[in-house]
């Protein structure tokens, strides 16, 4: 009995030591310092894709006198719904990343407070239609476009498609992969492009598209990396739904042409906005951040850090972008109020057509 008792005691001592050792690397109790909100912080609520170079963050903090705290989570849709649910008692002072497909929902719910922003030249073109008291400030834009693998089409002696109609052509059967509208904001943008292009007949287009072997994935990354021939994996489909900026990322080392190109007649424009949150604690900091997002420094950094184009005129693009990322001149658009009114019906109908 006594020997086994000693063995047990030794084991317990070992556990105790282990626990003490482990708790020294525990995270509890140590981070309490940055828990208390203070008035010299400005809190930005945003989505997963937000990113700014450290240098610019430091510059903002030096100029404004506030510490920038960033809370990122989810995609643009999750962000918008999070803001709607916390309306009046927000988790931050300012939000960035609500786009034109979700903007109406936040305006209807009074998520944002008016702010008489001064827009940089050119940004006016991107102001949200229907936002009459300047609650949302445009920050960046980009287009969701069908991309093609030019090397694949050259190897197969086939002319690449150029339009939405081409995608239902049997010549391109089983070649297209795209993220679904229900699970991906990129996919949603393409659904809206077809709504803009075909009006009420869009479900017929989708029926043809699916009939021609289009493949749906859950997210953009899945379509691009796994199924697309230029995605780095072993993909077998040379047509993918992606962005107008994507060709800038498929330039092989030492080459001066991109392996892919965006089909400029298939694009839907996305604009991302920032706004001061209703009920913000630090309104001054929030407004300063919005001005900062429109500054030439941030606008110039947008392509490299967030893969989007600036809204301001006269900003120099990175070399790869200037050569390979071509923006469409006349992308498809749907009125934000229409999107807000019909999003649910469209998505439900889309789900029915695509899973038939």
């Amino acid at each position, binding site marked *: 009995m006594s020997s086994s008792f000693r063995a047990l005691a030794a084991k317990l001592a070992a556990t105790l030591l282990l626990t003490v050792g482990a708790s020294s690397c525990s995270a509890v109790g140590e981070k309490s310092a940055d828990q208390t909100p203070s008035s010299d912080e400005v809190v930005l609520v945003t989505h997963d894709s937000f990113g700014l170079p450290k240098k610019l963050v430091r510059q903002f903090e030096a100029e404004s006198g506030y510490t920038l705290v960033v809370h990122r989570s989810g995609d643009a849709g999750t962000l918008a719904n999070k803001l709607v649910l916390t309306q009046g008692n927000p988790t931050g002072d300012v939000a960035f990343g609500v786009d034109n497909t979700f903007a109406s929902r936040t305006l209807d719910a009074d998520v944002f407070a008016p702010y008489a922003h001064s827009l940089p030249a050119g940004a006016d073109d991107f102001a949200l239609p229907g936002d009459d008291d300047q609650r949302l400030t445009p920050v960046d834009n980009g287009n969701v476009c069908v991309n093609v693998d030019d090397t694949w089409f050259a190897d197969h002696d086939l002319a690449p498609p150029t339009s939405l109609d081409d995608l239902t052509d049997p010549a391109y059967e089983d070649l297209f992969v795209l993220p679904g509208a229900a699970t991906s904001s990129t996919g949603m943008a393409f659904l809206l492009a077809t709504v803009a292009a075909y009006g009420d007949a869009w479900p017929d287009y989708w029926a043809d598209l699916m009939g021609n072997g289009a493949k749906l994935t859950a997210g953009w990354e899945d379509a691009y990396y796994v199924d697309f021939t230029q995605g780095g994996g072993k993909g*077998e489909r040379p047509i993918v739904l992606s962005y107008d900026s994507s060709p800038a990322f498929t330039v092989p080392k030492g080459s001066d042409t991109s392996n892919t190109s965006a089909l400029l007649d298939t694009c839907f424009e996305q604009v991302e906005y920032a706004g001061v949150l209703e009920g913000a604690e630090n309104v001054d900091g929030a407004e300063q951040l919005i001005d900062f997002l429109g500054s030439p420094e941030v606008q110039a950094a947008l392509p490299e850090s967030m893969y989007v184009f600036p809204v301001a005129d006269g900003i120099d693009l990175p070399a790869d972008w200037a050569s390979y990322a071509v923006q469409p001149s006349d992308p498809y658009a749907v009125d934000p109020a229409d999107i807000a009114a019909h999003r649910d019906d469209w998505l439900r109908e889309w789900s029915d057509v695509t899973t038939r």
Partner: protein
Amino acid sequence: MRWSRPLTLAGLAVVPVLVLGLFFVLPVSGMLARGLWPHGSFEPGGVLEVLGRPRVHRVVWFTLWSASAGTLVSVLLGLPAAYALHRLDFRGRGAVRAALLVPFVLPTVVVGVAFRELLGEGGPLGFLGLDGSPVAIVAGLVFFNVSVVIRAVGAAWESLDPRPGEAAAALGARPVQVLRTVTLPALRPAIVSAASVVFLFCATAFGVVLTLGGLKYSSVETEIYLLTTNLLDLPAAAALSILQLVAVVSLLVVAGRLRAVPDPSVARAVARPRRPARGDRLVLATTALLLVLVAAPIATLVTGSLQVEGGWGLANYRALATNGTHQALLVPVTEALVTSLRTAVDATWMSLSMGLLVAVLVTRRSRTRTERRVRGALDGFFMLPLGVSAVTLGFGFLITLNHPPIDLRDSPLLVPIAQALVALPLVVRTIVPVLAGIDDRQRQAAASLGAGPLRALWTVDLPVVWKPLLAASGFAFAASLGEFGATSFLVRDEHPTVPVVIFRLLGHPGAMNYGMALAASVVLAATTAAVMFAVERLRVPSVGAF
């Protein structure tokens, strides 16, 4: 004296119940209330309307079907492996045991990509045509959950008294007969426990269904996600959440019935693992097959992570100390790994301490019917976190924990707490069967020999519960390392965990980000295997030998 038992019961229950109440019941009811009172007035009609939609029927049917299939296959493959890895003694046993637990912690996003690389049109198994099929979904579910069966059943099998089986064999029973009439009935509580947990995991699986199903299939969980994050149709989301909760509760009731055995007591003679014999070939072959099935997707991850532009190399791994191409990350993966480990330590002690309290609470023999009912209800109560969508919980936190003194929306503590809640059912289900197996007469004997309640706990309960406790802590640690759903919602930007970082890398185009994501997954898997292996080493063979 008459009140001391109920008071002890209440005393033990108060902390875990409060924690669960604050961090689970409150947020979830907050979201349900938004759905049931959409415009300030009670409108349950919307909920009923939702339940009548044909789409909802399809979704519910698919969820039941896929979860049942996933559970069945997990149990069928897991049982032989549990035997081989816990009752047989062969070289490399510890390594295999640790390896089989790895899938459990891999973020679903990564497993989704790995499976699709394997089964996709251009992948090595592409000729099977399984991409986007229900078979792929079930395979994914099994991949994740088979380790739960191995662990939970294995732990019970290890502390199973071999003598009844030996006696039956001595009386002429063939091995199959012994298995059917002696071993399986004795293991029933553990098997039912494991199967019910696996079923809940399968039924609430999110990433697997989404990535592997090619959007053709939706489960209740993916539907709630869609309704909440995209459509903001809270009444419909509430309807499905309520449906989910009702289903979970009924499952728990049924499982509770099945779990109950006339005399759960386990005699304390522990079998020593023995060398494999000829009769064990089938069992070993099944285990090997399982190992191959688990290894295949992981192998695609490893090869993918070693691929760099124009050949093979370790560049993706070297890049883990950087912020990725085009500053995809705020902090390097190496730093995220430190955060992950620290958070996991916290989540582990939280779930272990709560889990132990709960387990002691629900396994003490009840004197009255009411007492037994209360204990049973508590047992089920702590399983509920398995049955609720991470999205519901995440949004619930935002709208309920938003007023001082509990404005915890941005507290760094929320992450380990949420992970501990996810791990809690695993901990409870691992410990309870063993604790329930202790003959209460042993405690009474200890008491009559003059031992106080603590001394009795020390000498009677602890030696038996030691191994399952280690298994449970390993589980909790692993579950915390791999948790993505709730974590991604709550995590602070400056302190992301590895799964969150992997997700971010996958979402950012750029030459190396994809390779880095795969490399980070491999590192996460390796870390988990190492931790599991260390836990294995801690097991002291002399435990229970008196």
